């Protein structure tokens, strides 16, 4: 049973704790409450934004073509803001509080400011949604000038960003408290280090957003006469793309956490994994430049340095994580006795546990679809054959939805019993949910990338150009791709609905966890546990033949796909 204790008062803030009966961790009650509210609001925005996304996909399905043009652009704007910003960042704030106060066993810094941050984030997100749904702000997620949204659209984003910044500094403050109070020795655990990486990228993201959104807000109310469109694009992408790098860091931290909690997996090398995160801290944000690869106003030196030389160091970080996490799982499984052949460790992994299956699908979809396509798009020459086509949303649906959203869904199946202290309801639906959602998202990503390769433009209401002065016909295969994309979107929407159903019902109507139910159905199996997540340490002398095979398959796919695209490029400009 949970035990509430009063910690020694420190300064003017007293903190109350409970001891988690499953993990033995000391849980700060303020941190726990803030994790709950941020996670719940995140799921609300996922549900709303996901519904808008389904409407968009059904409109881009030529045989259905659901919405009129004005509604299409309105819901596309709302979909982008709700899922690319609000869903992921609310959840990431919950992850930051978990990775600091809970994993480091200490109190949350400045809980009143953390509540203020939450209120500001909610107010900002609601304000931006109201502005879009009123119909005067259908400017897409990018809101490129000179398209002008209503002032409260920009104001909503600014208020949301201020709230997020306060939450991020509460996280940094909690690290200081943990160090001062000696709640850990030596280095922070790797999962917390991943959260530090996400928080650092968040600060750069918010700073870039402030630099461009505050003048744009003043422009929208008439205080500034002109915003340079190219200047806007450069600085806006410092926010727009970097915000998605917060996701990457948070999701990788979650991959390590789930592997440790379910299998007892330790990193193959703490130092190498931390160096990979350092590559993210220094270079991942520079990927923003790939949105400007066809802009004539910036030099090739700037483009190539940012998207190739520097970004490749961040990609190296991702590949280290991509090898290290399956490797850590294999090492742990072999330690747990699954030693036969090359793949017994993988076959006998807990595939019926949605936390594990969601994490594995997230790794595969992010790596094979999102990672490889990201490197291809980041190459200046190759970018020309897919820039501003549906290939781009195909890529980021693999990273943000297949990678981040699926990882967040996976860890939710651990957070509900451990933080909300409720039983997961509808266990069979929960068991299937990551597969249904993962299959849908992989389909969306593949079919959009296929359509983009055939030249289909992104952000376009009608690929048939029915009302255009000059007609244009895409190949028939492009129409097939968009039809398949619609079917995949229905599958992903079903998976999303299953997730919302299971999580919302479990949180609000689920049975409370009792000592009996904990003993009968422990959230963390005997092979795992909290100790691996909260301590520093690497796997000793692992032998990983299965991971070597998987990584080899990845590299072969990577090389083949990279050169196939150079072949496509050579066909665009034949030399004679």
């Amino acid at each position, binding site marked *: 049973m949970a035990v509430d204790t009063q910690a020694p008062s420190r300064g003017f803030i007293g903190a109350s704790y409970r001891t988690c009966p499953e993990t033995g961790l000391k849980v700060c009650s303020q941190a726990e409450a803030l994790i709950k509210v941020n996670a719940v609001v995140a799921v609300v925005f996922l549900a709303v934004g996901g519904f808008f996304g389904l409407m968009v996909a059904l409109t881009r399905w030529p045989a259905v073509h659901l919405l009129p043009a004005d509604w299409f652009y309105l819901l596309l704007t709302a979909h982008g803001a709700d899922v690319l910003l609000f869903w992921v960042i609310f959840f990431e704030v919950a992850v930051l509080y978990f990775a600091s106060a809970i994993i480091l066993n200490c109190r949350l810094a400045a809980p009143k400011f953390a509540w203020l941050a939450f209120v500001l984030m909610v107010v900002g997100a609601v304000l931006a949604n109201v502005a879009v749904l009123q119909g005067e702000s259908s400017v897409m997620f990018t809101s490129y000038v000179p398209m002008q949204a209503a002032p409260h659209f920009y104001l909503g984003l600014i208020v949301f960003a201020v709230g997020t910044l306060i939450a991020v500094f509460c996280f940094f403050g909690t690290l200081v408290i943990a160090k001062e109070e000696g709640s850990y020795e030596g280095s922070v655990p790797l999962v917390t280090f991943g959260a530090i990486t996400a928080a650092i990228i968040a600060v750069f993201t918010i700073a870039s957003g402030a630099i461009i959104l505050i003048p744009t807000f003043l422009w929208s109310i008439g205080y500034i006469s002109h915003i340079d469109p190219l200047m806007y694009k450069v600085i806006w992408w410092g926010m727009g793309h970097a915000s998605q790098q917060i996701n990457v860091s948070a999701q990788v931290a979650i991959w390590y956490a789930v592997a440790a909690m379910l299998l007892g997996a330790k990193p193959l090398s703490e130092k190498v994994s931390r160096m990979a995160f350092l590559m993210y801290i220094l270079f991942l944000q*520079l990927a923003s430049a790939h949105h400007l690869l066809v802009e004539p106003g910036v030099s090739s030196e700037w483009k190539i340095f940012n998207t190739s030389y520097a970004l490749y160091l961040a990609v190296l970080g991702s590949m280290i994580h991509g090898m290290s996490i399956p490797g850590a799982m294999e090492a742990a499984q072999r330690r747990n006795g699954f030693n036969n052949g090359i793949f017994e460790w993988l076959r006998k992994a807990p595939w019926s546990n949605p936390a594990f299956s969601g994490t594995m699908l997230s790794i595969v979809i992010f790596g094979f679809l999102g990672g490889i396509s990201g490197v291809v798009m980041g190459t200046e020459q190759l970018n020309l054959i897919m820039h501003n086509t549906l290939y781009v949303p195909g890529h980021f649906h693999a990273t943000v939805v297949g990678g981040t959203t699926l990882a967040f869904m996976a860890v939710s199946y651990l957070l509900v019993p451990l933080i909300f202290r409720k039983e997961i309801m509808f266990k069979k639906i929960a068991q299937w949910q990551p597969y249904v959602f993962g299959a849908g998202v992989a389909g969306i990503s593949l079919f959009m990338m296929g359509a983009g390769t055939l030249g289909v433009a992104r952000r376009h209401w009608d690929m048939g150009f029915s009302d255009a002065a000059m007609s244009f016909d895409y190949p028939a295969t492009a129409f097939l791709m968009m039809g398949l994309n619609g079917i995949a979107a229905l599958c992903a929407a079903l998976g999303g609905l299953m997730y919302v159903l299971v999580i919302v019902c479990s949180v609000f109507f689920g049975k409370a966890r009792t000592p009996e139910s904990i003993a009968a159905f422990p959230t963390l199996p005997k092979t795992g546990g909290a100790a691996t997540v909260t301590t520093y340490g690497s796997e000793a002398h692992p032998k990983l033949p299965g991971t070597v095979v998987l990584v080899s398959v990845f590299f072969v796919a990577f090389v083949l796909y990279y050169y196939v695209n150079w072949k496509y490029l050579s066909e665009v400009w034949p030399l004679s």
Partner: protein
Amino acid sequence: MSDQNTGSGGAPEERVPAMQRLLDNPFLLLFMGVATPAALYLLWGVMELSQIPLAP
């Protein structure tokens, strides 16, 4: 140079490598993580844009 210092209690303390000290300092990482993209992406990009001549 010795790899070990003597702590206040007389027990030998293992010297922490420079890279480890860097990785253990979130605020130094924060500075580097903001300054690097600010210089290489934002400042460099804005400087290039500011040098584009205005149309007559």
